[in-house]
């Protein structure tokens, strides 16, 4: 468990003081894959560095399993650091050493027998899938392989916490996915708590169970990933969410509406939670005297729970359509008419469009 208690960090350069963190309160539970997202300069890099004291907080405290690492001796701190692995955006591998030597490095800093080191290093290299690259040098590896070496090096001391500092930001989307899957396995198989900082919402969406949004050194929003994604409270969070969950209405739908008129209604159905597994659309078509036509959809998975929206065209009597809407509406499904004959929401949604398109 990692707890941030009113953590602030100020850098003084000459006469200017830069506040990198201000009164950050966060609790990361054991077993979490906790994501911190923010634009560059939001303070997230400083935040993750206060965990293993690469940066010391100006005020407040960071507790690891209830222990404040600032209050222990240097020797004890070095011991505690073996419990906190870290991986980096630019991997930070030693180019003069082989993959094996790089991964062995944390073990070589304290007393271990040669046999112990060899056994453990080969074990973690196998876990990350690089058992055939033992004798290679970092400059002979791809970016994804380098990060795998980084992960192996971080795991070699058997830590209970893994810090990921923009670990996938230098990688292409395909490699990012595979590294994220590896991190998920680290979390599941070794029961390691993972703290990830990133500026890519894709990363959060892919593996995190909880998320915090940072801006100007503050945590402006945090919570369960499903809650933040389905109901973002701040503009910044909304922008991040819309970068991975497209809920804008495509232009083609508007064009379609200009052709149809009269009996056609466009509905936007937001799914949060298990209900998207239920056959709502077909039930509506059976129960009411309407035709349902799916125009656009975006369903994604968060924490193995379907999440997203469908834009459907419902053709029928206004009364029947209203009945259908009432039927669909529930706790986990939110429906609203986007564009219908005489609908007042039309303007609202059009103005919203420009807002989300850039994300």
């Amino acid at each position, binding site marked *: 468990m990692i707890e941030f208690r009113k953590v602030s960090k100020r850098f003084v350069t000459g006469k200017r003081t830069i506040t990198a963190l201000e009164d950050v309160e966060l609790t990361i539970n054991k077993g979490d894959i906790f994501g911190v997202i923010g634009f560059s300069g939001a303070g997230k890099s400083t935040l993750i560095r206060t965990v*293993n004291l*690469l940066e010391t907080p100006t005020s407040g405290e960071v507790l690891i399993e209830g222990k404040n690492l600032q209050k222990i001796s240097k020797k004890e*701190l*070095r*011991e*505690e*650091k*073996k419990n*906190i*692995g*870290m991986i*980096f955006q*630019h*991997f*930070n*591998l*030693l*180019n*003069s*050493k082989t993959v094996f030597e790089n991964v062995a*490095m*944390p073990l*070589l*800093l304290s007393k271990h027998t040669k046999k112990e080191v060899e056994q453990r290093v080969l074990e973690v290299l196998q876990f990350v899938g690089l058992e055939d690259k033992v004798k290679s*040098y970092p*400059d002979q590896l791809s970016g994804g392989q380098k990060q795998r070496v980084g992960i192996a090096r971080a795991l070699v*001391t058997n830590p209970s916490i893994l*810090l990921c500092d923009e670990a996938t930001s230098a990688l292409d989307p395909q490699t990012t996915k595979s590294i994220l899957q590896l991190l998920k396995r680290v979390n599941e198989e070794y029961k390691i708590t993972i703290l990830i900082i990133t500026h890519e919402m894709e990363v959060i969406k892919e593996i995190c169970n909880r998320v915090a949004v940072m801006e100007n050194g503050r945590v402006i929003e945090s919570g369960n990933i499903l809650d933040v994604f389905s109901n973002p409270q701040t503009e910044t969070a909304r922008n991040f969410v819309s970068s991975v969950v497209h809920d804008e209405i495509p232009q083609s739908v508007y064009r379609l509406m200009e052709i149809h008129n009269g009996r056609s209604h466009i509905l936007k159905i937001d799914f949060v939670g298990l209900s998207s597994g239920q056959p709502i659309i077909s039930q509506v078509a059976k129960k009411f005297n309407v035709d349902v036509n799916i125009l656009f959809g975006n369903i994604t998975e968060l924490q193995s729970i379907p999440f997203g929206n469908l834009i459907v065209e419902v053709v029928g009597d206004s009364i029947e359509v209203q009945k259908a809407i009432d039927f669909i509406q529930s706790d986990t499904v939110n429906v609203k008419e986007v564009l219908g004959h005489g609908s007042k929401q039309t303007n609202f949604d059009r103005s919203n469009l420009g807002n989300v398109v850039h994300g």
Partner: protein
Amino acid sequence: MEVNRQILIEAIWETLYMVSIALFFGAILGFILGITLVVTRKGHILENKVIFSIVNPIVNIFRSIPFIILLVAIIPFTRLIVGTSIGTTAAIVPLVLHVGPYISRLIENSLLEVDDGIIEAAKAMGATPFQIIRKFLLPEAFPSLILSVTTATIGLIGATAMAGAVGGGGLGDVAITYGYQRFDNVTILVTVVILVAIVQLIQSIGNIFERKLRRVG
């Protein structure tokens, strides 16, 4: 006038003797000063304003004194260390004091080239400052350090030419006393050719090592 072969061979040995001994001690001095200059600077692993602001100007002072001046200026110190102020051995003391600070600057540059991320990773692993220097900084900078030492060695050969001023002998001394002062152009030419050959040889060896260590070519 014919160049005395015996004198030349003796001079080559004197030069190699001065260069190798001075390089050995100069490198030790240079590594100590160079590493100190890096790790005590602001924001580094053993930040220490006092030590840095003492070592830094000392290195600058020794770097700016022309070698011929240094050679005679420290005669009392030389006598204290090796018991004499004349001869090949006596020339080594000023050579060390000359090349040590020079090497320290080269080493400082090589070490500063190492990516800060490496140091950050080392700190995150819980490495001690000594381990960071020994197991991270020096190995990463090693190819570049080899080139630095090569450059320093060549500079040292140039400096030994002045060792004649304190009776140190060597190739430079032969060129001046037998060549320049006796208007013997052949002797000058021969010593210069030998010096060029030695410099070429050292540079080539340095380059080969550096390429091997960087695993290129």
